[in-house]
């Protein structure tokens, strides 16, 4: 009855969040005194999973699963859980994982807790801590079903190495026609750019930038840091930046290691959305901006002067620390 973890891949390669959910699931398996099995779909190399505590990898290879399909992937995981007799299944908080989770929960009669931030507080009753009210609070959730589905928040647990060696086993679940009643016809993915979901650093800007033509320096700052770019709600509402960049309570949550906010005043809805980020820096010319109460580091100054200088300083730093 091993713990089962779904380790996601991108173009066949394990995502960093896959290693994080594996690390977490290993912690759960240790608590329960059991082993850890991972499931991958069309992965090219799964060796790295052993380093994060996975003892067995069920590798699924099927061309029909090249595009993500929530129903079909949920079906794969359900059959893997049955095969391993798993009572705890761990998934990430990626868009795909959150898409398949409720389907899987129903199919396994499992209670599902999303946005979980720590190892279970107790095994029986099974209690986990998760964020609620869009990061304005936490709640302790008790899952009372026999089978439990845990969705781990991104960047909440980190990577933990252990010295297991993973064995692999081909796994061929039976998929049925009904799994494919929703079909992907096209995928439009930004390539060569760090996404907010995967980013360790996010550089975000607001109305203080005065217009979309001034985003060049924000993109350059993001480039220097290997960061994703994001924006506040008014900026996306005015069409200065695409909706996909809107972070906050009704936009995307950000759980980065470093969040840099330029010309964003820090409305409560914005702060809620980025609260899970570890270190926050604010650059704003208004010392009364609420963001200064929520950030770790701040610069009171004109963004148009501070940002270009910061880019230069960071370039120097990168050159010296390369």
């Amino acid at each position, binding site marked *: 009855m091993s713990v089962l973890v779904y380790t996601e891949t991108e173009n066949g390669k394990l995502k960093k969040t896959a290693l994080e959910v594996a690390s977490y699931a290993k912690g759960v398996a240790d608590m329960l005194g059991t082993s850890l099995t991972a499931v991958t779909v069309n992965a090219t190399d799964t060796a790295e999973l052993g380093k994060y505590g996975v003892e067995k990898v069920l590798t699924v290879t099927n061309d029909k699963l090249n595009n993500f399909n929530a129903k079909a992937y949920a079906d794969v995981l359900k059959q893997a859980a049955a095969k391993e007799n798993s009572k705890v299944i761990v998934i990430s908080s990626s868009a795909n994982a*959150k898409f398949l989770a409720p389907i899987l929960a129903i199919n396994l009669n499992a*209670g599902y807790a999303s946005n979980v931030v720590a190892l279970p507080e107790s095994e029986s009753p099974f209690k986990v801590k998760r964020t609620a009210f869009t990061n304005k609070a936490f709640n302790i959730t008790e899952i009372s079903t026999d089978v439990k589905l845990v969705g781990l928040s991104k960047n909440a647990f980190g990577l933990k190495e252990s010295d297991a060696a993973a064995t692999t086993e081909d796994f061929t679940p039976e998929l049925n026609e009904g799994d494919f009643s*929703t079909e992907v016809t096209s995928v439009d*993915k930004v390539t060569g750019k760090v996404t*907010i979901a995967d980013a360790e650093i996010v550089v975000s800007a607001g109305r203080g930038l005065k217009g979309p033509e001034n985003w060049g320096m924000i993109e350059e700052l993001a480039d220097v840091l290997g960061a994703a770019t994001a924006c506040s709600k008014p900026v996306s509402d005015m069409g200065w930046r695409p909706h996909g960049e809107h972070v906050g309570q009704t936009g995307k949550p950000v759980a980065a290691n470093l969040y840099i906010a330029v010309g964003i005043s820090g409305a409560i809805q914005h702060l809620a959305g980025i609260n899970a980020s570890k270190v926050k820096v604010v650059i704003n010319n208004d010392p009364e901006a609420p963001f200064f109460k929520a950030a770790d580091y701040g610069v009171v100054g004109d963004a148009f002067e501070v940002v270009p200088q910061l880019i230069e300083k960071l370039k120097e730093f990168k050159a010296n620390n390369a």
Partner: protein
Amino acid sequence: MKILVCISHVPDTTSKINFTDGDSKFDTNGVQFVINPNDEFGLTRAMWFKEKQGATVTVVNVGGTETEPTLRKALAIGADEAIRINTNPTDGFFVAKQLANVAKDFDLIIAGRESIDYNGGMVPGMLATLIDANFVNNCISLEVEGENATAIREIDGGKETLKTTFPLVIGGQKGLVEESDLKIPNMRGIMMARKKALNVVEPVDASTNTKAVAFEKPAAKGAIKLVPPDNLDELVSLLHNEAKVI
């Protein structure tokens, strides 16, 4: 086309969040409740289908009488009728079971990707699975032709287009309509809403699989360190040596 829009009754986004009863309950004192923002985008899209494609729109909520003003607001925005399932929404699975009981006759069910209070993000997908409907989550665009639907869903780092058919459940969000398309009820709408049917349905038996047993507020933030704008070397050094994030 018969559309059902699932409405959560949630604290306004500006609400300060507090707890009572030894941090075991959400403190509703002084809190303004609104239509969950993710649901409101869906409701507005449903209005578009009503106007352009002759759809009928029913709104539904699982909750006590205190949620009726939220349903009336949805009626004032233009929904044709409302259903209130008369029970306390204990968890996502329980709510999905209640909705499944009234959702079977609808072609299209639009819900928000998550409520902004508990952020469970599970009701739409569970509902779809319970009634054996198709499901698209994080939906940012939806077009319908006959029984066929084309949906665009936000994925990490982009979007993808999906083709599917009715019955269909959508987990919607901003993008389904623009913020500027959201409708504020006018006086005529409010007057008409008073006459529209708000049917109260008794709940069905269902288990509660998860329970929020306690709440915590995030730890208080330490004081901010301010760096003068002419000394950004210090900021770089703090981020490297102290925060260790670059």
